[in-house]
């Protein structure tokens, strides 16, 4: 916001605004973050919409979540009924609840695309390592938040999913069992578990919100990466507002079209029917599956015959992301210029989807074998292919700037 005004007569509003900005520069802060004062490369493609979208979905989740919390009862004998009351008797409760439940799925879809964007265009490389780390932490907290949220309606999958996942900690030698008892607040998943999960499910989204601030702060130090992965000079940058704000608004429109189609015409498509049966500690479902967004990791867990090693592999499969900036030895960021790496990257994406399928099946026969092969490829990709391809591959020539001729060849 420029303060020099050619006319000497400033309006009272203008003066009040400047008075306030001099004391707390709130508008300038926003303007610096996502406004006219944040220069962004002019060649960002639509994959760069997903960060803004993730922030949008977070706000959507908090808003619908707070309204749900006004009507939800975190007690094992009342939780399921209170959710049904929301669905039937609370005005537009069905809409809020379906928006929240499907919002979680779409949050993960958006964040997965956001992460793969970073992986493809090498956005984790220097000088953006800390930005990448904060992103992974956000993802971990999101997983915890969604896991605990799924327990709240207290259906059969809520209960048994919670039992299976919390039990994983019992694999830790010596202190495993005490940790599980501590998590549960007792000797099984029960009312105390539900209570603490509700408290944490309310808290963690705000932790994510704070982490998003750090994430954006870390982004603003080096500025945005771009599809070419090269350093961009000021001549090739445009102000975030209005160029990327309007592009993001358009992106939100497209996103909401897809999201609302599911909310209004297939609200239970991504959920498990068993969660419409109230939790029963005496009846174990024949096939306990977590929500779809955990399935690849669930497959990795079950691919390994030893429980402790399985748990280590599962957590390792996410934690490995922290060291990706150093596992990738290539000096080139964008996979557009890396003909060999690119092939293995797409194979990695397909591998992840196949792992998801394996996670949804009973761990026997074909799904188990495929799951093991895919688990192997998962780790091979990070620990072998990433460093080795980085050394061996001859990247295509990089353009000197966004406008240079090499650009056309690479696109």
């Amino acid at each position, binding site marked *: 916001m420029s303060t020099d005004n050619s006319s000497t007569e400033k309006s009272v509003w203008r003066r009040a605004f400047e008075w306030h900005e001099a004391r707390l520069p709130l508008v300038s802060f926003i303007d610096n973050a996502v406004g006219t004062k944040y220069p962004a490369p*002019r060649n960002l*493609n*639509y*994959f760069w*919409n*997903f960060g803004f979208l993730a922030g949008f979905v977070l706000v959507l989740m908090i808003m619908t979540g707070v309204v749900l919390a006004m009507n939800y009862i975190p007690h094992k004998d009342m939780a399921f009924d209170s959710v*049904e009351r929301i*669905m*039937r008797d609370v005005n537009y409760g*069905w*809409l809020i609840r*379906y928006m929240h439940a499907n919002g979680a*799925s779409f949050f993960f*879809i*958006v964040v*997965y*695309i956001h992460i793969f964007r970073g992986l493809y265009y090498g956005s984790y490389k220097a000088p953006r390592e800390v930005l990448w780390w904060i992103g992974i932490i956000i993802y971990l907290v999101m997983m915890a938040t969604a896991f605990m949220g799924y327990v709240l309606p207290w259906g059969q999958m809520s209960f048994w999913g919670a039992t299976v996942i919390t039990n994983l900690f019992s694999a830790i030698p010596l202190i495993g069992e005490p940790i599980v008892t501590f998590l549960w607040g007792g000797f099984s998943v029960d009312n105390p578990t539900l209570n603490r999960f509700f408290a944490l499910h309310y808290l963690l989204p705000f932790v994510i919100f704070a982490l998003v601030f750090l994430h954006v702060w870390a982004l603003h130090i080096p500025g945005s990466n771009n599809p070419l992965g090269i350093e961009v000079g000021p001549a090739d940058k*445009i102000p975030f507002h*209005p*160029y990327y704000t*309007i*592009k993001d*608004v*358009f*992106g*939100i*429109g*497209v*996103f*909401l*079209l*897809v999201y*609302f*189609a*599911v*909310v*209004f*015409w*297939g*609200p*239970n*498509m*991504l959920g*498990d*029917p*068993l969660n*419409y*049966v109230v939790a029963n500690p005496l009846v174990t479902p*024949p096939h306990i599956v977590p929500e*779809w*967004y955990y*399935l690849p990791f669930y497959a990795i867990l079950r691919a390994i015959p030893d429980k402790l090693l399985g748990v280590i592999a599962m957590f390792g499969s996410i934690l490995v992301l922290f060291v990706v900036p150093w596992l990738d030895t290539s000096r080139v960021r964008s996979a557009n210029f890396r003909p060999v790496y690119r092939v293995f990257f797409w194979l990695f994406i397909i591998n992840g*989807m196949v792992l*998801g*399928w394996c996670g*949804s*099946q009973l761990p026997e026969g074909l799904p188990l074998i495929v799951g093991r092969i895919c688990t192997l490829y998962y780790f091979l990709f990070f620990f072998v292919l990433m460093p080795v391809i980085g050394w061996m591959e001859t990247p295509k020539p990089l353009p000197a700037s966004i406008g240079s001729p090499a650009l056309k060849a690479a696109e």
Partner: protein
Amino acid sequence: MKKIILAAAATLALASFTASVFAAEEVHIPKEQWSFNGTFGKFDRLQLQRGLQVYKEICASCHSLKYVAFRNLAALGYNEAQIKAFAAEYEYPDIDDEGSDTKRKGLPSDYFPNPYPNEKFARASSNGALPPDLSLISKAREGGPDYLFHLITGYEDPPAGMTVMDGMSYNKYFSSGNFQIAMVKQIEDDKVTYADGTKATTDQIARDVTAFLHWAAEPMLEARHSTGLRVMLYMIVFTLLAYFLKRRIWARLDK
């Protein structure tokens, strides 16, 4: 534009992939035509009324419907007087002014009663099995209403070599219980006499009660579809405007 399509396709691919993950089913359940399916799907009021009659006359002796209150029956097209009269056919425990146990007539705010005093009693009367509450059943099983319809009509002679336990019936859709179900065949031709004169074939009765149970599980379905249409219309206009505005603003860069 190419990139918008790419990004949108990526979103869709991920969404449809995640949906297909759950599509795996053990027995093939044929898809049926329901008035409530599709973009504009609505319930058929008369069908729901017939379904209510089937529930009341056949299923209610074993199955509760605990999330449905009599007042909710307004959605089936009944007026207040009819609902009051319907509720008054049931009795609920009460305490009189002297403090002794008594009974009172049902009110529109009451919920459908449980036919059994407790779970043990229910199991004892049903060969050890528990007849589940039916208010959410249509959402609580893979295949939803299609499954319900085929389950309640899926009774036949067991395949050669299969021995069905005492008191159990063979049902080719009951995969969760190894095809042996503790509920005997409930629906036969003319088991009910419809108030509206519709011919009560097995198929008709099964369809009507299934539609009714789907309404019981998802009473807000019509509101969902109609709200959805309005929201989508708004979002289409919004998105188009945003797209053209985006093009216009970005055109400044070409100058």
